[in-house]
């Protein structure tokens, strides 16, 4: 009896300790809850927290390819040109710009009275220093596309610069947007630190970056465009969807990007939260190897397109968020022209299959990565194509392996890919990047992403031609031809265009998400 009593007492003591601990944390918890709600409701708190889904890779604007790093850089750094809410090009550090008719000379008139975060003045020499870094630094080769075509950067006077190219490059204006201008002092003194501590002219200056945890920027009070802004912005990489949603609900984060589709209803019912739906430039498609039998017959490719219900794709795979892909480029891309879509028509699809001699269908293979959404998409295609007798086998591969399989083929004959479930995203202002790597015959893997091995002499000619002119009307005309021709040739199953989803607390102002998923905080404020 005595033995049990001792242990009973111990047990009671343990339970009491746990309860006491619970009570004491309730007290402190109460405070933190108040703090949280205060953060989002009072409007006096000047710190904005943005939770994104991935880590930032580098803060070197001349060596960055990922959207999240770009977003943060945009808060601190500016280019001669910037982009607006629609993703279209606007003047930024340049007040005006012009392009010569032969698309070889770009002249910029610079904004005066702009200073860098380190006190250096912004002028034509600063532009030259940054541009020369992009051109000359070997390690930035990947991001110097366009800049390797520059023959000279002429400083006309303190606030005028002229850039000359050796051959026309239609994506050059977009390259000027990404070529953020860094403080010349930073470039000359300590190029090793650019990736960690960038210095630019943006509305916010760099404070701290703890890898994998957070990156903080602070308002730059000498910014040329005076306006009310939050004092501090902290960016946090939060890969788990549920955690990001929880942060938005508690007010720990003011903006989350992306907002997960599965939590939208729950978030929409919360009066403190707003959901933003932005049509993107992310095209979802399946590339069809046009050099492989039976896909080399355009009727088969068209039949496949007629067999797939795009509306159903959006509701099943994208949970209803998205738009049908009604051209080879999304509608937010410059020079987009709408095409007559392949409406869901099983009879027509079967007819085309019969004409092509495949009345009874055939066996096919579709490749994709291991992402659960990709898998869902491939299963959807599998189910849809079954209706016209095509039996699709799904091959799901980890991204690195898949990349090896796709780009390992040195010639079209070596390529094993039949269909690839994939997506593509280009800057809204860069139609070249949305077309050339995907449809030019010079872009067959491993030289580009034309995984449909699509070859059309007219299209090849137009793609070259459109790059050689600076006349927007002429470009629009050529792009219209390119779009209608390729859409008819159906080297892809044209599926959909994603809608980007972001969430914010209702007191957030002046933050917008661009069609590429970039977060712009130039005018960020809290009500």
């Amino acid at each position, binding site marked *: 009896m005595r033995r049990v009593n001792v242990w009973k007492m111990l047990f009671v003591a343990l339970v009491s300790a746990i309860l006491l601990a619970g009570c004491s944390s309730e007290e402190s918890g109460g405070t933190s809850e108040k703090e949280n709600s205060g953060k989002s409701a009072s409007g006096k708190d000047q710190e904005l927290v943005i939770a994104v889904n991935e880590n930032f890779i*580098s803060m070197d604007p001349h060596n960055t390819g990922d959207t999240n790093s770009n977003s943060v850089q945009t808060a601190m750094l500016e280019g001669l040109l910037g982009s607006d809410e629609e993703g279209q090009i606007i003047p930024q550090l340049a007040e005006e710009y012009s392009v010569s008719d032969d698309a070889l000379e770009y002249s910029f008139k610079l904004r005066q009275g702009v200073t860098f975060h380190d006190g250096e003045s912004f002028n034509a020499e600063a532009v030259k220093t940054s541009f020369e870094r992009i051109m000359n630094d070997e390690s930035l080769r*990947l991001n110097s596309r366009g800049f390797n075509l520059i023959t000279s950067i002429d400083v006309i006077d303190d606030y005028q610069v002229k850039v000359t190219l050796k051959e026309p490059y239609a994506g050059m204006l977009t390259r000027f947007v990404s070529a953020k201008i860094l403080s010349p002092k930073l470039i000359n003194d300590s190029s090793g630190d650019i990736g*960690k501590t960038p210095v630019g002219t943006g509305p916010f200056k760099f404070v701290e970056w703890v890898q*994998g*945890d957070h990156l903080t920027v602070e308002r730059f009070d000498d910014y040329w465009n005076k306006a009310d802004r939050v004092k501090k912005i902290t960016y946090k990489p939060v890969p788990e969807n549920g*955690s990001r949603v*929880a942060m938005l609900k508690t007010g720990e984060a003011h903006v989350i990007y992306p907002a997960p589709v599965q939590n939208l209803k729950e978030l929409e019912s919360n009066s403190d939260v707003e959901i933003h739906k932005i049509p993107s430039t992310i095209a979802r498609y399946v590339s069809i190897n046009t050099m492989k039998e039976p896909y080399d017959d355009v009727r088969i490719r068209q039949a496949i397109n007629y067999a797939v219900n795009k509306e159903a794709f959006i509701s099943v795979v994208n949970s209803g968020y998205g738009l049908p892909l009604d051209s080879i480029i999304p509608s937010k891309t410059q020079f987009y022209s709408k095409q007559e879509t392949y409406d869901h028509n099983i009879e027509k699809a079967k007819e085309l299959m019969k004409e092509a001699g495949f009345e009874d269908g055939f066996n096919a293979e579709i490749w994709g990565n291991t992402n659960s959404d990709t898998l869902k998409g491939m299963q959807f295609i599998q189910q849809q194509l079954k209706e016209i007798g095509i039996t699709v086998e799904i091959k799901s591969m980890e991204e*690195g392996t898949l990349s090896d399989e796709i780009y390992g083929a040195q010639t079209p004959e070596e390529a094993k890919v039949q269909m690839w479930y994939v997506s593509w995203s280009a800057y809204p202002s860069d139609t070249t990047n949305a077309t050339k790597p995907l449809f030019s015959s010079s872009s067959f893997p*491993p030289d580009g992403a034309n995984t449909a091995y699509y070859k059309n002499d007219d299209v090849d000619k137009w793609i070259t031609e459109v790059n050689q002119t600076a006349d927007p009307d002429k470009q629009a005309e050529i792009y219209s031809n390119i779009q209608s021709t390729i859409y008819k040739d159906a080297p892809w199953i044209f599926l959909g265009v994603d809608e980007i989803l972001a969430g914010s607390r209702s007191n957030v102002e002046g933050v917008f998400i661009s069609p590429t998923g970039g977060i712009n905080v130039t005018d960020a404020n809290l009500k």
Partner: protein
Amino acid sequence: MLQYILKRILEMIPILFIVSILIFFFTHLIPGDPARLVAGKDATLEEVNIIRAELGLDKPIWDQYITYMSNLFQGDLGTSLKTGLPVSEMFADRFMPSIYLTFMSMGWALVLGLLIGTLSAVFKNKWPDYLGMVTAVSGISMPGFWLGLILIQIFSVKLGWFPTGGAESWKSYILPSLTLGAGIMSMLARFTRSSLLETLRADFIRTGRAKGLKESVVIPKHALRNSLIPVVTIAGLQFGFLLGGSVVVETVFSFPGMGRLLIDSIAFRDYPVIQAELLLFSIEFILVNLIVDIMYSMLNPKIRYVS
């Protein structure tokens, strides 16, 4: 004892050498070309080749290995292919949070596991035993991912006691460490229970009780101490796994630790980071094993190591 420890540390050198070779070659065997992944989908072959050369990936694998090893001997872990930052710098921010998280998880697991296990054994087949074992079974069966999200929902969203993620204050560590420690806590509770039950049936316990020793002396001093050896083994092994196995928990709680870094690096084929991190885990694993062996002899003086 000191001699034994020294000998074990010296033995680590050839082991680590072999491990480093295995890590290097296995890492390079994973399919996927880092240069292509760095370059992106729209890169031309020429661009990919330039990057491959810049990263030194165009050299024969033996060359790359020799460079890797000679850098390693000079204490240089290499430069990340993805971020361009020195690997050691990338570790600097993440290593300590991971260590704190691991220790805290192990702390919960040990304290709660031993307590629940002991109480269950002492109150065998009574309600504390049932309650303890139900807790233990739940702890083992609940996936960390799910448990983490539930804890966030209750303690962060509903009650607002703890932040949902990050590693900014001690509060940030509570939920992830509980999540991470839950499985081991349960395992330790079950092992402690069965080991203690066995010891309580032993002759020396009966003798002790017959001699009139108090229960408060018999249980902690005689029974528990002797039951701990299998428990220490399990705890040691699990501790090794904890160091590298916290990927899921680190993801759920957006915790800036080593586990998440490893997963990100594998996806990107960031060879230098993968290699350095695996090597670090191996060293940690070997060290933990050594500590476990030393603890054996502290718990049971009959176990003595001779060099």
